[in-house]
C-alpha cells in the first residue's frame, strides 16, 4: 500500500478560508509540496500579499511575512538581501502584482533578485469583491466594468509573463494553468524549476498561474474551470517564455 497523495506537510493544519473550488487552494498545495520535495521548507520565507491570500501566512509551514498591497517583491528583496541563504518567495494575485505592484515586480526582475514569485492570474480582484484587474478579459463583467471591459476604455489585458520575459534578470518565466490534473502537474513542475533557479542563484523566477475565482466570476467551480479554459487560455498562451538554458 503506497500513498499516492496526501495533504502536504508543507501546509499547516489550518483550514483554508478560500471559497469552495477556488484554485488558490490548489496552488497552495503545489508550493508546499515543492518546498518539501526540495527540502527547503525550513529555510524558506514566504511573502503573502494583500488579496484573498492575505491570510495565507497561516497555511504554510514555514516562516512567513505579510506584505502591503503590491509590495511583496520589495519585502522579499529586503529578506533575501539580509539573508541570502533563505529561500524567499512571494505569492501574489493579479491586482496585487500586475496593478498596484507593477513597479515592484518589474524591478525585482530588473535587479535579478534571487527570489521566486507565484503569480495567481484570476482575471479579477477577489478579496475586494470582483473589481476589474489589468488581466480582466475584454467583455468580462466585473463590478467596475459592469457592461464588460472594453478596449476603448481600459485597453487590452496585460500579459505579465510576456512583459517580464523581456527583462534580463527574469531568468525563468512560465505561464501555466490549473484547469486539469495534467496542467496542475505541469504547474508544479514549473514552480519547482523556478525554485531550483533560486537555489542555483541564477536570478528571478516567476510562474504565472491561470486560476479561477468562482465567487466573483459568479460561476460554479466547475463552470469556472471551463470558463478559464475557454476564455483565459486562448488569450494567455501557456508555455515557457524564459528559462535558464534560453537565457544563456
Amino acid at each position, binding site marked *: 500500500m503506497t500513498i499516492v497523495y496526501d495533504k502536504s506537510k508543507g501546509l499547516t493544519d489550518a483550514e483554508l*478560508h478560500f*471559497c469552495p473550488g477556488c484554485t488558490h487552494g490548489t496552488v497552495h498545495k503545489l508550493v508546499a509540496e515543492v518546498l518539501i520535495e526540495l527540502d527547503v521548507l525550513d529555510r524558506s520565507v514566504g511573502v503573502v500579499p494583500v488579496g484573498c491570500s*492575505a*491570510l495565507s501566512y497561516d497555511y504554510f509551514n514555514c516562516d512567513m511575512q505579510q506584505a502591503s498591497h503590491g509590495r511583496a517583491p520589495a519585502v522579499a528583496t529586503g529578506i533575501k538581501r539580509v539573508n541570502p541563504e533563505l529561500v524567499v518567495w512571494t505569492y501574489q494575485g493579479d491586482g496585487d502584482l500586475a496593478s498596484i505592484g507593477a513597479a515592484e515586480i518589474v524591478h525585482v526582475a530588473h535587479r535579478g533578485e534571487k527570489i521566486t514569485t507565484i503569480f495567481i492570474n484570476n482575471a479579477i480582484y477577489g*478579496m475586494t469583491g470582483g473589481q476589474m484587474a489589468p488581466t480582466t478579459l475584454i467583455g468580462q463583467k466585473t463590478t467596475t466594468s459592469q457592461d464588460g471591459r472594453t478596449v476603448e476604455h481600459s485597453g487590452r489585458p496585460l500579459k505579465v509573463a510576456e512583459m517580464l520575459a523581456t527583462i534580463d534578470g527574469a531568468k525563468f518565466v512560465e505561464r501555466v494553468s490549473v484547469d486539469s490534473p495534467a496542467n496542475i502537474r505541469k504547474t508544479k513542475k514549473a514552480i519547482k524549476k523556478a525554485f531550483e533557479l533560486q537555489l542555483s542563484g541564477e536570478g528571478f523566477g516567476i510562474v504565472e498561474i491561470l486560476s479561477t475565482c468562482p465567487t466573483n466570476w459568479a460561476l460554479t467551480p466547475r463552470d469556472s474551470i471551463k470558463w478559464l479554459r475557454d476564455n483565459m487560455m486562448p488569450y494567455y498562451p501557456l508555455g515557457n517564455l524564459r528559462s535558464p538554458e534560453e537565457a544563456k
Partner: protein
Amino acid sequence: MINEKVICAGFGGQGVMKMGQIITYSGMMENKHVSWLPSYGPEMRGGTANCAVMVSETPIGSPVITNDATAVIVMNLPSLVKFEENAAPGSRILVNSSLIEQKVSREDVEAFYIPCNEIALELGNAKVANMVMLGAYLQLANPVKIETVFKAMVKVFGENKAKFMPMNEEAIKKGMEIVKEQIK
C-alpha cells in the same frame, strides 16, 4: 410608541440581509425613522451575515444594537449562540427551528421556534425561508403594516423579480399564521 431594534442573523445565502432591508424599507415608507446596519467581513460571501435594523417614531441615535435588541432573529445555530445575549430583557428571540435544534437558554425573553425551511419547502420554494421568518416577526412586533411590507418587498427585490412576489407574500402570511399559533 414603536421603537424596534432587530437583529437578523444567519449564514450567507439565507437572505437575512434582505429580510432586514424589507423591514427598514417598510418603515421608511411609513415615514418612520429607520436604519439598517450590516456586519461585513473579509469573506463577504459564505460565513455568517447579520444586520441591525431600527424602526422608530423618534430620530435614531446609534444604529448599533448592543444589548437592547427588541427582537433577535436567528436563522442558523452560530447566530443563536452569538446574538442571544443582545436581546433586551422582555424582548423576543425568533429561532429557525429547521436548522437549529438548540433552545434559547435565557429565561427573561420570549422565544419562538419557526421551522422556516420546512414551511418554505412545503410552499414549494426553499428560498422563501427568510420570508416565513419575516412573517413571524411582523406578526409579533407589528412595526409596520403588512401592505407596506408587500410594497417594500418589490422595491427591495427589484421590479424584475415581481413575479416572485405572490410566493413571497404567501410565505410571509404562512409565517404569520404559524407564530400566531405559538402565541396562543
